[in-house]
């Protein structure tokens, strides 16, 4: 039990996918201008990451490893994640039109989010079992959401703040991201996995 809790804490705070592993930076910078969109993006990513890491684990364990085809991981994970996203998009459009409208364009965009491929690959590398893989995916998603929402809130605050002209926009965003990354390094002592 503690082991599973540790996985979540480790991947949310200590080995945060964005700030420590430097994955998924594109949405981190791209959709963090407004809090609303970042919340939608987080929700969509959380969903895809969890489902994606479970399905990729299944394929990896039952198809690739028995035949010694680990070198096909990257390509098959990409195909599977893209298909899962497509499928969920269809189901969502049919059954949950409201959710579909909220997540909208973000859902297909996530297919190309490197965090979504990174987590299943890390799962395979660390030879997690199914539950661990699912928790790792969920934790990664939580960490991503936490950081993205924090960052979007900070950027929204900066909009109204009296910042030097030179620093406005991307410059300030880069600095903020760097400082956030530094502050997350403070969590390293938490976990000795």
């Amino acid at each position, binding site marked *: 039990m503690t082991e599973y809790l540790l996985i979540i804490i480790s991947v949310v705070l200590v080995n945060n996918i964005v700030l420590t592993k430097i994955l998924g930076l594109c949405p981190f910078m791209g959709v963090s201008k407004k809090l609303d969109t970042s919340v939608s993006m987080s929700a969509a990513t959380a969903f895809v990451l969890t489902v994606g890491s479970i399905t990729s684990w299944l394929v990896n364990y039952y198809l*690739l490893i028995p035949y010694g085809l680990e070198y096909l991981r990257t390509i098959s994970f990409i*195909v599977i994640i893209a298909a899962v996203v497509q499928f969920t998009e269809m189901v969502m459009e049919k059954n949950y039109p409201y959710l579909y409208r909220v997540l909208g364009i973000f859902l297909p965009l996530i297919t190309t989010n490197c965090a979504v491929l990174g987590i299943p690959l890390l799962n395979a590398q660390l030879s997690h079992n199914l539950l661990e893989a699912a928790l790792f995916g969920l934790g990664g998603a939580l960490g991503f959401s936490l950081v993205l929402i924090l960052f979007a809130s900070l950027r929204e605050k900066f909009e109204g703040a009296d910042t030097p002209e030179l620093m406005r926009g991307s410059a300030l965003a880069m600095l903020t991201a760097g400082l956030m990354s530094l502050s997350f390094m403070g969590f390293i002592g938490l976990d000795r996995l």
Partner: protein
Amino acid sequence: MIEAILITLSITIFIGLVLGYASIKLKTTGDPIVDKIDKILPQTQCGQCGYPGCKPYATAIANGEADINQCPPGGDDGIHKLADLLGVEYKPLNAEHGEPKPKSVAIIDESTCIGCTLCIQACPVDAIVGAAKQMHTIIEKECTGCELCLPPCPVDCIDMQVIPETTENWKWKYPIYKIKQQN
């Protein structure tokens, strides 16, 4: 080697089948009622109903946010059709949103036009061609007669011209009385 090809093939074929089946099974063709309402609306995109175009107005009607009598270009006939489609009572056109006018197109008086491009920005259907400081003109076929280009013109060089009735565009007038009473 063979295994790799077979496994990749089987994964992709499986995914293809699932997605293909899902796209047939889970097909959604927009919101059918919105499309039906949108078809009845005259597509002038004039915005007199208070919505930024015909489709948003159709969506608003479908959601019950707007009444059916806010479309002057559609006229009485349009309201009748909407009432039939939605199964509600007919109500006369809401005068707040304007009066129905005969179908017309905008004509630019090309000798007065100063080429300011303001009307181009106002046109909802991109029926005006022209560039800055060049004379503009209107593609009559595309013009819906929405009059949105009239207010922005600083030199008042746009006129609405009623389309005359010719043997080419004449058709039976509505309403056509039904011979057999429906019950």
